[in-house]
């Protein structure tokens, strides 16, 4: 069988590795289309022939589900992630995320790079967390919004900015940055990558694959790429 998976772009390295695992290949040949979750969700809504959707946040999965495009009983959270603050590796910068911390001082003349906080998942989490910590007013005129979270990471890696908010999964694979702090759990909603079979696509192979992705082999790969373990609920 051949299965078409629509997946948020940040999952690419991990999913490629999983797809190459013999167990996965035994279930189906995986074809994967990577793009922003928003683009993928809209394509599915417009009738894209995908079998499985993996979103970078709950919002777009919910959106599709409300439109009846998702086989709700197959939905689960494939992986989680953490949001971290990174700085260029060689920067001598010490900063701890805490309510009322002086992040403006840490930035100095520079700016903080975020995935676009109005629409890109990583940016939305970061903005929510900064608001919760009361730091957003300091940052409102000091951030650079990027097209996706990888672009924010790249800015820190190239020392174009002193700070960036990115996923841990991104930070671990980039030697040019240093994680200086993790956003406190509870400063933002849990970061979840929900997965589901799409309407009318819950074939045996699809179900088998979903099962496999839940399983230890796939989860181990995800962990190696910096994602946290699958939840079950949302």
């Amino acid at each position, binding site marked *: 069988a051949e299965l078409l998976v629509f997946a948020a772009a940040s999952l690419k*390295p991990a999913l490629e590795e999983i797809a190459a695992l013999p167990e996965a290949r035994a279930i189906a040949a995986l074809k994967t*289309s990577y793009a922003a979750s928003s683009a993928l969700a809209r394509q599915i809504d417009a*009738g894209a022939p995908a079998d499985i959707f993996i979103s970078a946040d709950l919002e777009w999965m919910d959106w599709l589900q409300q439109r009846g495009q998702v086989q709700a009983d197959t939905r689960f959270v494939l992986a989680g992630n953490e949001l971290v603050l990174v700085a260029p590796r060689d920067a001598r910068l010490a900063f701890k995320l805490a309510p009322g911390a002086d992040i403006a001082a840490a930035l100095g003349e520079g700016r903080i790079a975020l995935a676009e906080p109005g629409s890109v998942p990583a940016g939305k989490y970061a903005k929510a967390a900064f608001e919760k910590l009361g730091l957003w007013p300091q940052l409102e005129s000091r951030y650079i919004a990027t097209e996706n979270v*990888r672009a924010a990471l790249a800015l820190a890696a190239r020392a174009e900015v002193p700070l960036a908010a990115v996923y841990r999964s991104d930070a671990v694979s980039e030697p040019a940055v240093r994680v200086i702090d993790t956003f406190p759990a509870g400063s933002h909603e849990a970061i979840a990558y929900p997965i589901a079979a799409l309407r009318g696509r819950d074939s045996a192979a699809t179900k088998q694959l979903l099962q496999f992705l839940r399983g230890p082999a796939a989860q181990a790969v995800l962990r190696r790429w910096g994602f946290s373990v699958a939840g079950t609920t949302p």
Partner: protein
Amino acid sequence: MLSAAEISALAISLKVAVLCVAIALPFALALGLALSRLRFPGKSVLEALLNLPLVLPPVVTGYALLLLLGRNGALGAWLAGLGVQFAFHWSGAVLAAAVMSFPLLVISIRAGFDGVDRRLEAAAESLGAGPWRRFLSITLPLSLRSVAAGCVLAFARAFGEFGATISFVGSIPGETRTLSIAIWELLNQPGGEAGLGRLVWVALAVGVAASLGAALLGRRAQARSGEDD
């Protein structure tokens, strides 16, 4: 040198760009001629619509195509009834590329037609040439430089198209995953910069080939006039 996946992406990009120009060219010639030679109501609106894919961010154009031509789209549902499907098919990538590069093609061609000496067309008419022969033997060859310039622009634009393609037909390996999408994926991937350089060189080579092709056409056009100095 290139992996199988990269070769596939390059092949898709070349196929898309070549077909895009080949398919769009007749329409662009017809429209360019109409814009250059006719006055008709709604002409300015048509010209503005033509520019629309340029003034909008490409992903919006792709989204508009998706709304219109997706399986559930107004036109898409109807076309699906006829067995024609663009969305998530490589032909959709051709369509997206054609929409994005169409303005480049039409505007160049139109400027070329505008520059043709109408007195030569009249002379051809007096020699018995009907509209069709006049166009093929006089108007078109005399604006070959502009047509060639338009084709290079359109080819390069189609080859490099990313935003409209990925929003309309996604990135399906072997089907719609073009070189541009492959490059973008590398850029968004840990450690991808290494492979990036290689693919950028490939794109550069394609750009060189395209401009050499145009230069050749242009030189043929130039050889024909033995002017003063």
